C-alpha cells in the first residue's frame, strides 16, 4: 500500500464517519442554536407568556363574561371561550416566531447560510426552526393553561388535553408561516401583513368569542378553512365535552394534521432550494 493511497482513504473514512453522526442528529444540533438565540430574549418571552393570558382573562373573564349571563353551548362563557383563547395564543406566538426570526436567518444575519455550509442539511435547518418554535409555544400554552385553571375556566382535569390541541395548531401556524417566510427574499413589510391580515382576522372570525354559526353564511367559510376554528372546536370537545358529531371531531384533527404536513414539507423544500442554489 502506498502512502498516497492511505491518505486518501483516511480522509474519506474520516469524512464518512463524521457525516454519519450529523445525518442522524443534525436537526437537534441546529436546534441548540435556536434555543440559545431564544435565551437572549428569555425574559421577554416569559413575560409575554404570563402577561398575554392575564390580560385576556381579566378583560374577557371579569369584564365581558359578567355581561353574558346566559350559557353558551351549555357552559359558562368563560368555559366556552377558554379553549379558543388557548389555541389563539399558540397560533399567534408560533406565527410571530416564524416571521422575523426566519427572515433573519435567511437575510439579516444569514445564519441559515452558515448552517448550510456546515454538515447540516437544509431540511434539518428547517426542522431546527420548528423545534425552536415548539420550545417557545408549548411552554406558553402550559403557562396559559395554568392561568385558565386559576380563573376556573376549565371544568375538569381532562381539560388539560386542550394543551395538545392548542400546541398542534401552533405548530400548524409555524409550518405554514415558516414556509411562506422562507420564500421572502426582500422585506417589504410582508411580515406585518401576515400578522394583521391573516392571523388577526383568523382570530376574529374563527368562532373564538362566539359560535361560528352566529356569523352569516358568507362569513362562516373563513372559519371552516381556518386551522384556528378547527383547533378551538377540538379544544372545546376536549375541555368540556362539547357535543358534536364524531366525524366532525375527526375532521378537525385531520385538517390540522394535513396542514401541518403540507407546511412542513413545503418549508423543507424551500429551505433546500434556497440554501443549495
Amino acid at each position: 500500500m502506498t502512502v498516497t493511497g492511505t491518505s486518501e482513504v483516511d480522509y474519506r473514512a474520516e469524512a464518512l464517519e463524521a457525516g454519519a453522526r450529523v445525518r442522524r442528529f443534525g436537526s437537534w444540533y441546529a436546534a441548540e442554536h435556536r434555543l440559545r438565540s431564544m435565551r437572549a430574549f428569555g425574559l421577554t418571552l416569559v413575560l409575554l407568556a404570563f402577561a398575554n393570558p392575564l390580560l385576556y382573562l381579566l378583560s374577557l373573564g371579569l369584564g365581558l363574561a359578567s355581561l353574558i349571563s346566559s350559557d353558551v353551548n351549555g357552559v359558562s362563557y368563560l368555559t366556552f371561550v377558554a379553549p379558543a383563547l388557548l389555541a389563539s395564543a399558540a397560533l399567534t406566538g408560533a406565527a410571530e416566531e416564524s416571521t422575523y426570526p426566519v427572515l433573519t436567518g435567511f437575510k439579516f444575519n444569514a445564519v441559515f447560510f452558515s448552517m448550510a455550509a456546515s454538515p447540516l442539511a437544509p431540511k434539518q435547518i428547517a426542522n431546527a426552526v420548528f423545534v425552536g418554535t415548539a420550545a417557545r409555544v408549548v411552554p406558553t400554552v402550559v403557562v396559559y393553561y395554568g392561568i385558565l385553571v386559576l380563573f376556573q375556566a376549565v371544568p375538569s382535569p381532562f381539560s388539560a388535553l386542550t394543551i395538545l390541541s392548542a400546541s398542534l395548531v401552533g405548530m400548524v401556524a409555524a409550518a405554514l408561516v415558516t414556509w411562506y417566510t422562507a420564500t421572502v427574499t426582500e422585506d417589504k413589510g410582508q411580515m406585518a401583513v401576515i400578522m394583521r391580515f391573516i392571523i388577526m382576522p383568523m382570530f376574529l372570525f374563527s368562532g373564538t368569542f362566539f359560535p361560528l354559526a352566529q356569523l352569516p353564511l358568507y362569513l362562516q367559510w373563513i372559519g371552516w378553512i381556518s386551522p384556528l376554528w378547527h383547533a378551538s372546536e377540538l379544544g372545546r370537545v376536549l375541555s368540556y365535552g362539547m357535543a358534536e358529531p364524531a366525524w366532525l371531531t375527526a375532521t378537525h384533527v385531520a385538517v390540522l394534521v394535513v396542514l401541518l404536513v403540507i407546511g412542513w414539507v413545503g418549508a423543507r423544500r424551500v429551505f433546500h432550494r434556497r440554501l443549495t442554489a
Partner: protein
Amino acid sequence: MPAPVISARNLRKTYKEFVAVDELSFEVTAGESFGLLGPNGAGKSTTMRMLGAVSERTSGDLQILGLDPNDHGPEIRSRLGVVPQADNLDSELRVRENLLVYGRYFGIPRAVVARRADELLEFAQLADRAKARVDELSGGMKRRLTIARALVNEPRILLLDEPTTGLDPQARHVLWDRLFRLKEQGTTLVLTTHYMDEAEQLCDRLVVVDKGVILAEGSPASLIREYSSREVLELRFGSDRNADAVTALAGIGDRIETLPDRVLIFAADGESALEEVSRRGIESITSLVRRSSLEDVFLRLTGRTLVE
C-alpha cells in the same frame, strides 16, 4: 505526489441561460495553498460554493476528499472549514457563543467545543473579546472570528472566499499572518481573491479565472515568468497624451500596454528601458520601475486590469 483532496473535471454551473462556471478543471493536493484569481463576476464564488458541497454542479466531475458532493454533501462538509465572502456571524449571540453553536453543528461534544473555542479565540487574537457582542467588533475582528469558526471542526480543507476584501491594510496583514500559520501547520487552503498581493503572499499555485474559464495556471512566479517580463516600467504622460506617447515609445522593451492613466513597458531590465526613453527625448510626468506582478499577468491575459 500526494493524492488530490480536490479534483474537478469540466466543472460547470449554469443558472438558466447564464453560464457562471464553464468547464473548469483543476486539482488541489493535500497541504497545498491554492488560489482562484479573477475579477468580480469571474465565477469564483460559484466555484467555491460547489467546492463547499453546497451548490450542486450542472455537469462535470467533482471529488472532494475522495467523495462526490452530490452523494456525500454532509460527509464532505463535516471536514471542511468555510469562510464566506460576507460574514454571516450570528449577531444575536456573543463572540464565543458563535463558536460554541457552530461546533455543535458538527456534533462535536460540548466540552471539546468549549476547549477549542478558547484555543481558537487565542489564535484569532480575540480572547479578550469572548463576551463581546459581534456588532461591537471591527471588520478585521469579524473576519478573524469567521475564520476561527471555520476551524472549529479541525478541517482538512479551509475554503476562503475573498478573505480580506474590505479590510484596511493593517487588518489584512494580521489576517495573512494567521492564514500563513495554518498553511505552515499543513492545512490545505483554497482561496479566491482579486488582490494580486494576496495571491502572491498566500498561494503556492493558482489559476487565473475570467468569465467562468481558466486562462492560466501555475505558481505566482511561473505565471509572471510566462506571461510577463521580469520588470515593468510605468510612465505617466497625462491622460490625453498617453496614447500619443506610445508611438514614440515603439520598440522599447518586449511589449507596451496603454492604460487610461499610464503606459506600461514590459522589459527584462526596466532601468535600461527608462534610459532608452530619455535618450529618445521623450518626457514623462512620472516614471517608475517595478517588479512584474500578477496584476500584469492578468492584464496580459485579458487586456483588462483586475480591480476596475
